[in-house]
Every structure is written in structure tokens, then in C-alpha cells.
């Protein structure tokens, strides 16, 4: 097959930009519109060309071995990933007389709910997060933080960092990396101006350089992104925690204010913290 040259230089410019520095929101719209006309093939081929170049350059420069400590943590990630792929039997405990205990039924119900949510197309959930939280509470593996009413001084941090009137808690299942933050008092946000983002501080993660001045060692790390969310109503809301990386030992959950789309590295405009 030969590649028919396109006369649209802008299309090729978008392909090259996408394969190297990525596209801005505006360019993404232009790309998607052009893709309808030209198809996805060329975009994929540009990505493969960039990948082949990257591989060639990296090997030519000499491959840098992954540090042992990083590799060990990655092995743990692999173990957890494998574990997550293996269907686990539902741990139903039996009470006296062979009747299923309430806990057993609750765990089974939670498992069925989770299975239902996962099985939905595209991973979308139309299950009420509040109901999911309640189900998770019944799990023997879940932990719950105390209800925190700010401005207390959680973790010894100065209270001026927090909005007044915010309160909430977290329920978290370490084995499933699943959890929900229940929170009230957050201001309704305009998603075009800012969004809220959840973060999980994992005791097993290394410290980052950017937060060396944090008052607690645990806060010196780059936390795990727990997902971006919007507040569209006043009152109590329940937010599913969507950890983007496996979490080994969750200790603190935070909510920050971030630019639209969220951040990879937060500027730490913290509005809420909860500790397990």
C-alpha cells in the first residue's frame, strides 16, 4: 500500500504534534474533526513512527537500568495487578445452625454490586455512589475515617488552609483499592474555571522533591491521583475514589482545588483532608 500524500498540511501538523508534544483542547477538537475525514490510520502510524524513533534513540543512548527500589515496588504493583485479575471467592461466613450471617450476606451483596458496576459498558457506573459506599461499609476489609468537621486541625496542619464548614469521611477497602469520600460543605464549582481532585497518600510511596517542606513525612510524597470531580449541588455528596495507581497502604485522603482537568502534580490548594 502506498501512502497517498495529503494536501492538508494542517492535518499532518496535528498528527506530528499529537505524536510528540500532545494536543491542546482546541487542537484536539480540530484533530477529531479532521479524523472524521481522514480516518484514524495515519494518526496511528505517526504514533508508531515516534515510538520506533524513541526506541532507537533510547537504545542508541544506552538503556538505563531501572533502580532496584523502583523495580521492587513495581513487582508489588504486578503482584497486586495479578491478584486483582484473579476472581476471589466470596467470603461468606456461616453462623450457628448453618444459616448465612448478616455479614456474609452483606459481603455477598457488596460483591454483586461491585461486579455489576464493573460489567457495565465502558466501565460507566449508574449506581448511586452513596449505595455503593453503604455496601462497602459492610465489607470486613473496609476501614472508615472519623467524621472530620473543619476547621479542626487534622494532622497538625494550620486550619487556615481549609474552607470553613466542610465535613466528611472516607470508607476505603485496601484489598480492592475501592473507596468513597462523603463530604459536605464544598462550594459548587464552575468546571471551566476549576475542579476538585482527590488524592490518596500511600505510606509505601517515596517522598517527592517538590514537597520537602511538608509538615509530615507522609505529605512529602507525590500522592496517587484519586480522580477529578465537580460539585453541582449543596449538601452531602459521595465521591467514588478512582485511584489511578495501585495503593498499598492508604493513610490520608485529600481534596484539592485544581485547574480544569486536574493535575498530575498538585499545587496543593488543599480544602479537605481525612486520615484513616
Amino acid at each position, binding site marked *: *500500500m*502506498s*501512502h497517498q500524500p495529503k494536501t492538508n498540511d494542517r492535518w499532518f*501538523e496535528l*498528527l*506530528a*504534534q499529537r*505524536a*510528540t*508534544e*500532545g494536543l491542546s483542547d482546541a487542537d484536539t477538537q480540530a484533530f477529531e474533526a479532521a479524523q472524521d475525514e481522514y*480516518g*484514524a*490510520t495515519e494518526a*496511528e*502510524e*505517526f*504514533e*508508531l*513512527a*515516534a*515510538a*520506533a*524513533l*524513541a*526506541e*532507537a*534513540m*533510547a*537504545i*542508541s*543512548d544506552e*538503556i*538505563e*537500568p*531501572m*533502580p532496584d527500589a*523502583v*523495580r521492587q*515496588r*513495581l*513487582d508489588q*504493583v*504486578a503482584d497486586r*495487578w495479578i491478584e486483582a*485479575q484473579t476472581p476471589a471467592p466470596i467470603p461468606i461466613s456461616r453462623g450457628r445452625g448453618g444459616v448465612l450471617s448478616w455479614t456474609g450476606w452483606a459481603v455477598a451483596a457488596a460483591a454483586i454490586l461491585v461486579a455489576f458496576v464493573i460489567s457495565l459498558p465502558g466501565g460507566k457506573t449508574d449506581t448511586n455512589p452513596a449505595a455503593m459506599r453503604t455496601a462497602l461499609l459492610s465489607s470486613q476489609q473496609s476501614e472508615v475515617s472519623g467524621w472530620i468537621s473543619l476547621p479542626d486541625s487534622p494532622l497538625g496542619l494550620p486550619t487556615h488552609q481549609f474552607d470553613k464548614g466542610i465535613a466528611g469521611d472516607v470508607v476505603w477497602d485496601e484489598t480492592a483499592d475501592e473507596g468513597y469520600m462523603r463530604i459536605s460543605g464544598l462550594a459548587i464549582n464552575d468546571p471551566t474555571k476549576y475542579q476538585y481532585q482527590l488524592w490518596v497518600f500511600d505510606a509505601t510511596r*517515596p*517522598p*517527592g*522533591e517538590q514537597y520537602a517542606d511538608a509538615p509530615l513525612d507522609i505529605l512529602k*510524597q*507525590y500522592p496517587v491521583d484519586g480522580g477529578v470531580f465537580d460539585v453541582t449541588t449543596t449538601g452531602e455528596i459521595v465521591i467514588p475514589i478512582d485511584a*489511578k*495507581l*495501585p495503593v498499598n497502604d492508604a493513610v490520608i485522603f485529600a481534596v484539592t482545588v485544581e485547574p480544569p*482537568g*486536574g*493535575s*498530575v*502534580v498538585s499545587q496543593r490548594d488543599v480544602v479537605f483532608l481525612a486520615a484513616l
Partner: protein
Amino acid sequence: MSKSLLQQVADGNEQAVRECLHTYSGLVWSLARRMCRDNADAEDAVQEIFVSLWRSAARFDPAVASETTFVAMIARRRLIDRVRKQSRDDERVSTESAEPIQAAQSDTSQMSEQAKRAMEVLADLGEDQQKVLRLAILQGLAHEKIATATGIPLGTVKTHIRRGLMQVRGRLSEIEGGESPRRDVERVL
């Protein structure tokens, strides 16, 4: 014909998951280290990359790309996304590692067939174009920053990148008896 590592991962082979780590940890770490701001950031990135790789293992098709190139493609998608979300205002741009290379001096024995072809194209390019491509692809620098760092006009930077990628794409299409890479590489992210 034996299955590739990623095909075995897709089949649920636990050992293949670990073997995948062993085989590609160096390449993925090398790519991440060059594009991320520090080791902690790179560590986060490689975790994301491998989880993404395992999840997308079923989409690997050896008729489309070598396994190594597929791994590099997944890694780059995650890294580009990550870098775009980060503020790179504080980054120090180094052009030292962007010196031109000679294909004859490079050890290509570890490279996939696609990477060898890409290396041949790269070695034939002019010094400026090589430098621009290395800064864009290996260090993940934005085109504007490349222009600032090298003194090459932005329009020329974009042209160098676009034409370089088109040349590599053309060379890759010669693999598999003149067939272009197949059209069904699915979006993974």
C-alpha cells in the same frame, strides 16, 4: 508459532506479567527518566505505564508492530499525557543529549526491526533535524521550548518534526513486503 509476552499476559499468564516487567523495565524506565522531572515522577509514570500495558495487552498485534515498539508507543502515550498535565515552566532544557548520531556507530542488535529502520532514517537527516527530533521525542519537549533552546524558528522546528516522522512512517511501511502498518491499531487510552 509461540505467543509473544503480551499475548500471554492477555491470556492471564501470571509469569508473563512478571517477565514483561523484566524484559521492558529498562526501556520504559529510560523513556520515563528522560521525560519526567525527577525519579519520583518517573516512578509514578512507569507504574502507570505498566498497568496500562497489561490492560492493553490483548490489543497487541504482531502484524502491526513489534512488541518493543508497541511497548514504547504505550509508554509514550502515558508520558505525553503526563507531561502535558504538568507545569514544565521550571524545566531545564538541555540540548547536550541531542547530538547527532551515526547509524554505523550505534548498536542496533537490541533494536526491533522498526527501530532499526527509524535509526537509518535518523542517521540520514541533517544535524538540526536530528537534534529537534531527539528533543521532541526523547526528552518530550514542547515545540516552542525546542525553538527557544536551539534558536531554530518554531515553524522550522515543526517542519523538521513533521517531515522526520513522515519519513520514518514511510520507511516502516516497507516492512512486511511493502504493506503499511495495519490500520487497526486500536486506541488504548
